[in-house]
């Protein structure tokens, strides 16, 4: 099941050139761009791992692309996203966030029904991938590294 989180997620995956143009858009507006990755893709997981601190004072997307590539090499089977943080007073928030890598195989989510008191039913979703321990998710049991 294809995960749709962040901007552009209903479009085909962005090419590096397209990513670089989106980053250029962020930098032109003075946003700090950061790279984050995770292998726990639950929509409520807001704590992704930071790939280095956010990058300030950049003028050109080439600097961000260096980090995106480095992060992909180190985490070939993780979700990676790029965030543009706007520090302008009263915004002070992430203005743009989009995926720049997803695992080759995305097992999707299980919907669980939890019986409550009486005849009430609660629902929860759980990513199949998180059944396995960290680092072994999205790998079909084998640890594979990108060459």
């Amino acid at each position, binding site marked *: 099941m294809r995960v749709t989180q962040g901007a552009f997620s209903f479009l085909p995956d962005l090419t590096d050139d397209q990513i670089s*143009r989106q980053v*250029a858009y962020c930098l032109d507006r003075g946003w700090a761009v950061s790279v984050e990755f995770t292998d726990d893709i639950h929509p409520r997981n807001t704590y992704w791992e930071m790939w280095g601190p956010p*990058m300030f004072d950049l003028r050109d997307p*080439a600097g961000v692309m260096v980090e995106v590539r480095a992060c992909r090499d180190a985490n070939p089977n993780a979700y990676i996203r790029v965030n543009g943080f706007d520090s302008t007073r009263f915004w002070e928030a992430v203005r743009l966030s989009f995926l720049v890598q997803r695992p080759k195989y995305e097992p999707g989510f299980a919907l669980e029904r939890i019986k409550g008191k009486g005849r009430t039913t609660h629902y929860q979703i759980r990513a199949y991938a998180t059944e396995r321990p960290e680092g072994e998710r999205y790998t079909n049991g084998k640890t594979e590294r990108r060459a």
Partner: protein
Amino acid sequence: MTMDRPAATAGFETDAQQAIDLKALRAETDIDALLEELDRELVGLAPVKRRIREIAAFLLVARARERLGLQSEPPTLHMAFTGNPGTGKTTVALRMAGILHRLGYVRKGHLVSVTRDDLVGQFIGHTAPKTKDVLKRAMGGVLFIDEAYYLHRPENEKDYGQEAIEILLQVMENQRDDLVVILAGYKDRMDTFFASNPGFRSRIAHHIDFPDYSNEELFAIAQRFLEDGHYHLSPAAQAALIDYIAKRRAQPNFANARSIRNAFDRARLRQAQRLCERSGVVSREALQTIEAEDIRASRVFNDEIS
């Protein structure tokens, strides 16, 4: 990545084209305006200006060749500026960034000026992130490394400078499209630096030597400072300034245009002091005029100290 390149392809077809109008290409990149500005605004530096014109012509021809499908390898643009302090290396680097931007060899055309302290860390593992951070900031523009030879400390083989050099070399080689590196410093020390780091020498295409300014050029530079600050010299002060330049040159720590700017700043202080002591009404003329005594009071004229 070709985005943000100002050189548009309007009017040029790349298919089976046999000729290209260099003049049109020149006009399109608007490079002449920048070169003329360089000529007009910088005093002296004739050999430097000539070299920059050469480089600009070379890059323009490289662009034309590329349009006709003749060139596959982009030209190496890293440069070394050598010369004494105050000879205009930083100023020219700033202009260079503009020229490279107009010709479409760097995407943004900004200049990031750093020294050893900005690149080299203080403990193990500190250098690489620091250097990479600076490189990322410089991407799309020009990285200007002042006194680059301090990166290499031959007396200490554990020095972290070597780590910074290796990262720099790697990026200079692999990301030539993304940034241009300019190394600057004294001529003799740069030569020693290059001799012990052959990797740098082979990756730098253009070596530009900045000559010292002559006394007349320094005087012309002083005139520029004065004009920009809306001051002028009385005739006696002009003679004093000519004496000052001749004397200052012979003294230690002479830094060409920088010494002149400092002298101007101190003369302004003395002028202000003189005007304040003489209480009463000061004319517009008096506020603008620097007198001979403002310059003659300098310790440069005091032979005992020097």
